């Protein structure tokens, strides 16, 4: 299947490698696939993924605050 290709149209898509954006078409395809697979509504996705996003920094902060080296640093600063 031959498709018309315009160079500038290509550059918006991309690049989940370093810094750039997901292809809009691919994002729509992945979205359809997830919907078919799990049958969830948008809000269910938002809540489930949102919890995953929030849990990471909470765990990081608790883990660091319980670390003895951070406590020692705070004591030294206070002195």
């Amino acid at each position: 299947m031959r498709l018309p290709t315009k160079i500038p149209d290509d550059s918006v898509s991309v690049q989940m490698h370093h810094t750039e954006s997901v292809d809009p078409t691919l994002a729509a395809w992945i979205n359809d696939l997830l919907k078919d697979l799990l049958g969830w509504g948008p809000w269910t996705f938002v809540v489930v993924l949102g919890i995953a996003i929030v849990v990471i920094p909470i765990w990081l902060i608790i883990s660091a605050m319980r670390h003895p080296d951070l406590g020692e640093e705070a004591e030294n600063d206070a002195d």
Partner: protein
Amino acid sequence: MASLSKFNPFSRRVDGEKRFYGWNVVGVMFFGMFLVLGTRNSFGVFVDNWEREWGVSTGEISVAAAIGWIINGFSQPILGKIVDRYGGKVMVVVSMIVMGVSYILLAFIDSVLMLAVLFGGVISFFAGGVSPGTSGAVITRWFQRKRGIAMSVVAAGGSLGGLVLVPFLTQLMLATSWQTTWIISGIIVLVLGVPTSALILRNSPDDMGLLPDGEKRATGSRASAEQQNRAQALMRGGPLGSDSWTEAFKSWPMWQLSIGYFVCGITTASISTHFVRWAISEDISQANAAWAFGILMGINAGGVVLIGLMSDYFQRHYLLALVYLIRGVAFVSLIVLPGAMAMWAFALIGGASWLATVPLTTGLTADVYGVRNVGMLGGLINFSHQMGGGAAVLLFGLSFDRLGTYDPAFAFGAACLLIAGLVILTIKERKYSIRYAQPQQAAV
């Protein structure tokens, strides 16, 4: 069991003592990459809405993305230099504040021009502050022996950020609006990213009276002097290490690493950009293509951690060459295998090599040239990646337009990867890396 525990890179205890604080720093940088790359990856999700509301074409919005690509490439050495001088903490925190505020402002724009200024300019510039280059500059100060695994965990954060935040923001937009989605993105970065970085991140182990890798402080003047020499050697690097970053360009490894990363840019940007068009041209179904890309990203996150772990036990340049050659095999599979089979082969083979270049390249740069200039040098190597990627996106598109098939472009990619693999193989790591320096050399 005791000998096996030596190979556990995340072991909670170092030498029978507490867990090394450097792993908390790795956690923060992982989350920083997760947030910044994940939200930037999501740009494409908003394109349809902007086209409809502003009455513009994809090509016009592409200009903003292309500006962002170039600005991000230029920003990395500049911000890397600042990280080398002032440390990573201030850069990460400031970058996140600017990006978070800018995401909120994106909700109020109504033209491509404002998108180009805000996303292509401000956000893309400061994204360089939480990039593989600048995070490498932080992590290499904290780790020497476990540099590979530490760097690879941080790199995997970017990959997982795309996997989680792209569907999250897509669904959020479906449930609300694109404006609300950008506001919530900004709030996430400001409320979760900024405090986490400000509270936990430290520029170097020295800031907390610690040593790299959690090494215990030696007792006795001789042992202590040796330890100090090792710490200085870590900053200085191997025999090519210098106070001036420009000196690096007078030696081969800098060029060899840059050539490799240039090819990395060519081959990842071209595939990512042209993946959908190629899949359609091969009559591959949407669901299969989505599955394949998801699997590629999943293997990518696992592959980068595995390669990073291995790189702490083997010479990094062998692994880096292997990664380029494996990716070359994946490119060949796109040419010789029929449509769907080629896609799955590429997802499985290529996925393992997709991001593994990041920790290996940054680790080698720090091993050879030392830690003091790694932000700047890493940024410059990243710049070559961006330039290779930009050129390849154009060339692959032109090739498809003229020839009606991607096969010649894929063959070009495979040839470039073969060359990159061979060039990297010629790096004399044993001669130039601080990892293999003799004790008397390290002490000089």
